[in-house]
């Protein structure tokens, strides 16, 4: 597999990179210390600098970005609750990633999961390097470990938006650990590791449309269903308590997402430029689409809508940022802006679930649109730079990846919540929920005057 990849990228034309990136995504895992020692490639400092920047951008996406994006949307009495869920989940999983996550996801030979041979990163030193998608180009392995840690940690933090405002902090943390271990790690391996089922099938997912967004979106939805609706949902108004926070959060997500998407290429090269521009312009188009869509269909364009549009665009371009042309990215942005608007308005209403922060409507739906768009807008006949032959078969492969992720994530989430329900319990008392999780779960209030 690795061989074939090398051949491909050697072909030289950047056009092949779209697919190459996908297929090679697990390359780093093969860059064992010995191997590095043989060929002894030295990391380019521009790549190293860029990958460190990308890593801290993804950290900024989570804290404070996601905490604010989510926090602004809940009621004031739950502001600290959701912030804590994001902040502590992110921190805890970063530790677990270093302890066993990296080893299970990117080491060993299993096709579903790795082994514990790099427990606590044993065997890795500052001299270790990880391969990139270009032959002979490496980056420090510690940087790769840190970069991947942020993906694992933010994905799980995303999911908690589905059952926000009504779940016990302890339940959220237990869910996070279980889901990270049994859903994130295997799916990351399936999609990004050479022996993974989806990897072998040729599914395209540049920066995590399936692994991150569909995965988290489904967990959010299933969690929302299992935890049940917020008390008063449907009868009591639950407006966002601080829309400026939502705006700040969305903006920081936008800025940070360049680390997420461009960093997934592992190099600061010409291909990075395309990914960068696509991430920029697809988001801008989705903001515009949601804004005008709301204006036309609901009467007024809202800030909450524009912010949601930004996230929808970012989600959709995540899997496809390496295979679309900037023109294709604009089209994708316009389309996904409208589809996600429909998902959180029409679809959600008709199905009646209480996905508090629309993790499903934005991340799962946007992720599906993005994953499928790879096969369509990514095709050279539509201006794309994808290296697959024809649209139809690739669309089937993409759909397969989407479906497997949906099922896997749903099952793991359901089991996790069942276990929590029968052990420590999922929800605080109704009184505590109505009074607010901030005071009841955390003994704090967000604002004092």
């Amino acid at each position, binding site marked *: 597999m690795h061989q074939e990849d090398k051949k491909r990228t050697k072909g030289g034309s950047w056009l092949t990179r779209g697919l190459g990136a996908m297929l090679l995504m697990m390359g780093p895992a093969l860059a064992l210390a010995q191997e590095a020692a043989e060929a002894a490639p030295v990391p380019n400092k521009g790549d190293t600098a860029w990958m460190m920047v990308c890593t801290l951008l993804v950290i900024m996406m989570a804290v404070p970005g996601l905490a604010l994006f989510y926090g602004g*949307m809940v009621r004031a009495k739950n502001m600290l609750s959701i912030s804590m869920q994001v902040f502590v989940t992110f921190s805890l999983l970063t530790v677990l990633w270093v302890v066993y996550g990296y080893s299970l996801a990117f080491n060993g030979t299993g096709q579903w999961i790795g082994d514990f041979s790099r427990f606590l990163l044993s065997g890795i030193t500052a001299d270790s390097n990880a391969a990139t998608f270009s032959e002979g180009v490496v980056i420090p392995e510690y940087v790769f470990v840190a970069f991947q840690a942020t993906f694992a940690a933010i994905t799980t933090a995303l999911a908690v938006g589905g059952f926000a405002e009504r779940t016990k902090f302890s339940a959220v943390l237990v869910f996070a650990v279980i889901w990270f271990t049994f859903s994130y790690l295997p799916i990351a391996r399936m999609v990004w590791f050479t022996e993974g089922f989806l990897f072998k099938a040729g599914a395209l997912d540049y920066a995590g449309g399936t692994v991150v967004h569909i995965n988290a979106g489904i967990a959010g939805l299933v969690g929302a269903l299992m935890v049940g609706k917020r008390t008063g949902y449907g009868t009591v*108004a*639950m*407006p*966002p308590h601080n829309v400026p926070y939502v705006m700040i959060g969305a903006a920081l997500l936008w800025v940070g997402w360049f680390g997420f998407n461009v960093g997934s290429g592992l190099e600061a090269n010409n291909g990075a430029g395309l990914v960068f521009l696509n991430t920029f312009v697809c988001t801008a188009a989705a903001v515009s689409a949601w804004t005008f869509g709301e204006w036309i269909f*609901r009467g007024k364009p*809202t800030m*909450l*809508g524009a912010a*949601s549009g930004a996230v929808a665009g970012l989600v959709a371009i995540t899997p496809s940022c390496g295979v679309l042309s900037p023109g294709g990215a604009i089209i994708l942005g316009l389309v996904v802006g409208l589809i996600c*608007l429909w*998902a*959180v*308005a*029409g*679809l*959600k*209403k008709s199905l009646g679930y209480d996905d508090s922060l*629309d993790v499903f*409507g934005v991340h799962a739906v946007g992720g599906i649109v993005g994953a499928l768009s790879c096969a369509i807008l990514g095709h050279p006949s539509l201006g794309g730079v994808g290296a697959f032959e024809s649209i139809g078969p690739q669309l089937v492969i993409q759909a397969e990846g989407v479906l497997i992720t949906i099922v896997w994530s749903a099952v793991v989430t359901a089991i996790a919540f069942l276990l929590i329900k029968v052990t420590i319990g999922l929800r605080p008392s109704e009184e505590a929920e109505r009074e607010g999780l901030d005071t009841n779960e955390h003994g704090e209030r967000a604002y004092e005057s």
Partner: protein
Amino acid sequence: MKMITAIIRPWKLDDLQMAVARLGVQGITVTEVTGYGRQRGHSEHYRGSEYQVEFVPKLRVEIVLDEASSEAVVEAISNVCRTGKTGDGKIFLAPVGEAVRIRTRESGAAAA
């Protein structure tokens, strides 16, 4: 003495203040409140969710003054705060037994 409590639209405060100042009112206390009344019933959207908005932002304006001037002030307030649309608000009058100006210990009408 009387206490006038007016519940008004927030953006009418400046008009109200100028109107009552012209009538010699020297003190006003204003509170941000939310009100439920006939104006309810419009719905707001948050992303997809559509909610009945029951409580809308209002200001409560309190003025303590001698009984003699109260009628004119009520009149003035209702004039400037009227738009004719539901939600214009209410004015309540209640008796006040005593008023004290903390700074000077003056009491009664002198303190209002």
